[in-house]
Structures are given as structure tokens and as C-alpha cells.
């Protein structure tokens, strides 16, 4: 061994980072200011912004499995803001802006890659809907435009413009569309939060919610009881089940969402391409794998099993778009449980229980909202329940007053 290398290895300065990124678990304290249930992207982001911008550091994140192991790891990592409603576009645009800065904010690379997202229209009705989405988007500061077949062919030369009986008529080109490494987003937030004093407790499952009258006072876990001033629940697929423990209902239905990746190949596809008529979206990761995703399962289920039927239909449609992909092999496939609302918008803010805040109804659109969810939920908790303007339209009460925020035009299959 060269002497210089040996000297370097024995040096006091090596290794440079003596502190682990995420400290080892400690015992649970008996009291926290804030308990966050769910150690996925949304939960750790909320803790991060609470600690960094509001000085609230006596926070525990309770995760029943491991950090970012639920839907944070199961989504297809699409970041975009080309939604349909002004409420949705404003909200998701704010999220995209935070994503653009996130690697700098963390000093940790989340591999954010803004390649643009292309959605294909196969019918006149879709073209009309796209025109509306483009205008709403431009109005609220997004970069979205309607493009013709020729422009599509130039953007994605490998795309089959005439799949079966559904010729492509036009495309919605969203320059802000991007992807990032989803695990890194959770790790970045968790590192930033725990370095500021937040405790992340994995393998810690909340089994009951403690209340005094209508006010939350603590939680019961498999590792003992904890008292707290307020609780945030951010548990994606199991939101409605947890809310029942807190004593209220959520208008959610749990559907599995399946996705898969192929073996890695040379880069051929830069933008993220999706087609709502074919119920399929395709993108190539920076590792070269092709991610294929689509609509949810046809009926509700609290299980992340995969089914052959959905794989069959997804692959059939992916091959319609990119016929040469029929030569490729699948590497992995998986499913996540999504908590779907009837209007395809989230449920955020206050709950019927005092000091108990909800971040639910994230269905198939949760990953792209991670930074803005953390930001607004932190503001909500730190202010003691003053709901930020950006999330006011997503209140739970909207389902009692028929004031839904209809994101139907931009959901499941179209991202």
C-alpha cells in the first residue's frame, strides 16, 4: 500500500463525516411538541420545514416501517404542475419551484432533472381540454403549450404517432415537467430535519390516538405512550384507517396502483411521455430503465399485490407508443396503496379533532407535491391551526358542502 494512502487513512480528519446522516434511534421521550405520523416524503418534509423555518425542533416522526418505504418509494417520480383547476395549478407550481431549488437547499443531490413532460391527445375532446390546461397553466406562471404532430415527432423521434386506431392529434408540452430520485428527496429532508433535532423513529407504529374531549393529547405506539401538543398524520394509503382511530372519517377509497421498470438501455427518451387515452405513461430514468405506469386498479383493495391483467394492459399500451420496446425485458414491478378522493384533489388542513392536522387524499399525485405539502403543513402547525391560503381549497369540509376541486381532467392516467 502506498505510504500516502496509509497516512491518509490514519489521519484524524478521516472519515470526513463522523456524524451519520441520520442519527441512530433513541428511546422515545414522554412528550413532544409535535408528533408526525408517517415517515414518508410528506412527513419528513413537514418536520424539516418546522425545524428549519419555524424553530420547532421537539418533533418526533413515527414510522411503522422504514424511512420513505411506502408510496415515496413506489411512485414513478413525476414532477409537474400542468393541472386543470386554478387551485391545483397554483399549488403544484409552488411545489415545482421548491423542487428546482431542493438540491441546493439540502446540499444533497436529489438528481432533479427537468426534461419536460409530453401528454398526448388522441381525440378532439382531449385537444380542447389541453387548450384549457395550457391557458390556465400559463396564467399561473407554468410553462405549458399545445404542440402539433410535427413538433411531437421532433421532440420524441422514437414515438409511434399512429398507435392502433388512436392517431396522435396534438400534445400538451410542459417544459417544467421533471423527475428526481424519490428516495433522495426523503433522505434529504430526513437528514436536514434530524440534524436540527427532530427525532425519526422507525419501526414505531401508532396504534391509537389519545384525546381529552375533542383535543388530541398524545398517541399510543408499539413502544409506549407519548404526550404531545399536536399531531400531523401523513400516511398515504392508510389515511382513512388512521383517521378512524382519531375518531373521524375521511372520504377516501384505497386503490392499488401498479408500475414497473424494464432492464436498463441506452438513453433514447428525454421527455416524460404520457397518454390518457392509452392509460399509460413512460419515462427513462437516468440509469436507463424505462418506467411504465398507468391508471389505478379497477377496484379497491388494501393490498400491494400485483396482477397480471394490469401488467398486460400497461405493456400493450406502452408498446403501442414505442413498438421497439417489445424486445425489452421487465426488471421489476410493484404496487402501492393510494388513497383516492372523488375529486382527485388532496385533503389538507384541519380535522374535526383539535390540534390534529391531516395531510391525506394523495392518491396518485403525492410525490410531486412533497415540498409544498411540507412547507404548508409546517406553517399550519407552527401557527397553531391558521390554514395557509394555498391549501384552503383542499379542506375536508368541502365534502360536506359540495365544493369539490375537480382535477378529473388531469389525473391517474395522465401523469
Amino acid at each position, binding site marked *: 500500500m502506498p505510504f500516502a494512502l496509509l497516512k491518509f487513512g490514519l489521519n484524524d480528519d478521516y472519515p470526513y463525516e463522523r456524524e451519520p446522516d441520520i442519527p441512530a434511534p433513541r428511546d422515545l421521550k414522554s412528550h413532544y411538541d409535535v408528533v408526525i405520523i408517517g415517515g414518508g416524503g410528506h412527513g419528513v418534509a413537514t418536520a424539516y420545514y418546522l425545524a428549519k423555518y419555524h424553530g420547532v425542533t421537539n418533533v418526533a416522526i413515527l414510522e411503522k416501517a422504514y424511512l420513505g418505504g411506502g408510496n415515496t418509494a413506489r411512485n414513478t417520480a413525476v414532477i409537474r404542475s400542468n393541472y386543470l383547476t386554478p387551485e391545483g395549478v397554483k399549488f403544484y407550481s409552488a411545489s415545482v419551484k421548491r423542487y428546482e431549488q431542493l438540491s441546493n437547499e439540502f446540499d444533497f443531490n436529489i438528481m432533479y432533472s427537468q426534461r419536460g413532460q409530453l401528454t398526448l391527445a388522441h381525440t378532439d375532446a382531449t385537444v380542447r381540454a389541453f387548450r384549457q390546461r395550457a391557458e390556465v397553466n400559463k396564467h399561473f406562471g407554468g410553462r405549458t403549450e399545445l404542440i402539433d404532430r410535427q413538433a411531437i415527432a421532433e421532440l420524441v423521434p422514437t414515438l409511434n404517432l399512429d398507435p392502433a386506431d388512436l392517431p396522435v392529434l396534438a400534445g400538451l408540452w410542459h417544459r417544467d415537467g421533471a423527475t428526481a430520485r424519490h428516495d433522495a428527496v426523503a433522505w434529504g429532508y430526513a437528514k436536514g430535519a434530524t440534524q436540527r433535532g427532530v427525532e425519526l423513529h422507525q419501526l414505531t407504529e401508532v396504534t391509537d390516538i389519545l384525546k381529552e374531549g375533542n383535543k388530541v393529547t398524545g398517541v399510543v405506539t408499539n413502544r409506549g405512550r407519548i404526550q404531545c401538543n399536536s399531531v400531523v398524520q401523513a400516511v398515504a394509503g392508510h389515511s*382513512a*384507517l388512521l383517521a378512524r382511530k382519531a375518531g373521524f372519517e375521511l372520504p*377516501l377509497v*384505497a386503490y392499488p396502483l401498479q408500475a414497473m421498470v424494464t432492464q436498463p438501455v441506452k438513453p433514447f427518451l428525454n421527455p416524460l411521455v404520457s397518454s390518457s387515452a392509452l392509460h399509460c405513461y413512460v419515462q427513462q430514468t437516468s440509469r436507463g430503465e424505462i418506467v411504465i405506469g398507468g391508471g389505478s386498479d379497477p*377496484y379497491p*383493495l388494501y*393490498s400491494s*399485490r400485483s396482477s397480471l391483467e394490469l401488467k398486460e394492459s400497461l405493456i400493450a399500451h406502452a408498446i403501442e407508443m414505442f413498438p421497439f420496446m417489445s424486445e425489452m425485458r421487465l426488471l421489476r414491478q410493484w404496487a402501492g396503496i393510494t388513497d383516492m378522493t372523488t375529486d382527485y384533489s388532496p385533503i389538507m388542513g384541519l380535522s374535526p379533532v383539535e390540534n390534529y392536522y391531516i395531510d391525506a387524499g394523495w392518491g396518485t399525485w403525492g410525490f410531486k407535491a412533497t415540498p409544498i405539502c411540507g412547507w404548508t403543513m409546517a406553517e399550519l402547525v407552527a401557527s397553531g391551526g391558521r390554514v395557509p391560503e394555498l391549501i384552503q381549497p383542499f379542506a375536508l369540509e368541502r*365534502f*360536506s358542502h359540495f365544493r369539490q376541486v375537480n382535477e378529473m381532467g388531469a389525473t391517474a392516467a395522465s401523469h
Partner: protein
Amino acid sequence: MKRMQCPLNGLRNISEFVYGGQVTTMPNPATCTDKQWAHYVFYEDNDIGVMREWWLHAPSGYWFIAERHNASDEIVRTYDASECFSSRVDFSASETAS
């Protein structure tokens, strides 16, 4: 492929069926409050266990009820809706608008 017992057509592939939501009790639209109606429209029983659900056999246009476990996906029993519903609900709007 998973199969389901249709009370009218026998054992058929699951792809022939369409899920139609849980069987819930409808409040009287003439007398209930808006909030009760909203609850009926948007909320379902969120628990893990055997659920009573509406299913449609699409090729024959036949609606029936299935009892299915919503985590194991086991179909316990399927039967005709007449086992639960015996009278017709009249939805004709009252003629107050002029």
C-alpha cells in the same frame, strides 16, 4: 385470471365485471339534511374486512351484490340485489319550480 361467481351467469373472468361502490343505506332525499346527503354521496365504510359491494356484469348489464374481503380480495358470496332491496325508490323531482 381471477374469476367471480355471477348470480346470473355463473363463474366469469373478473375483467367482465365493473366495481360499483359499497352498498350503503340511502337517507330519504326528501327529508335528510344536505350534510347527511353529502355523507351518503362521498363517504364509505373505511375498514379492513368483508365489505358488501355493488358489482356489474358488464356484458349482460346485470347489477348484483358481492361480499368481498378488501385486503385478501377473497370473494365470500355473491347474490341478487333482491335479497337486500325489495321496494323501488321513486326519484321523480317535486314540481315546485315554475
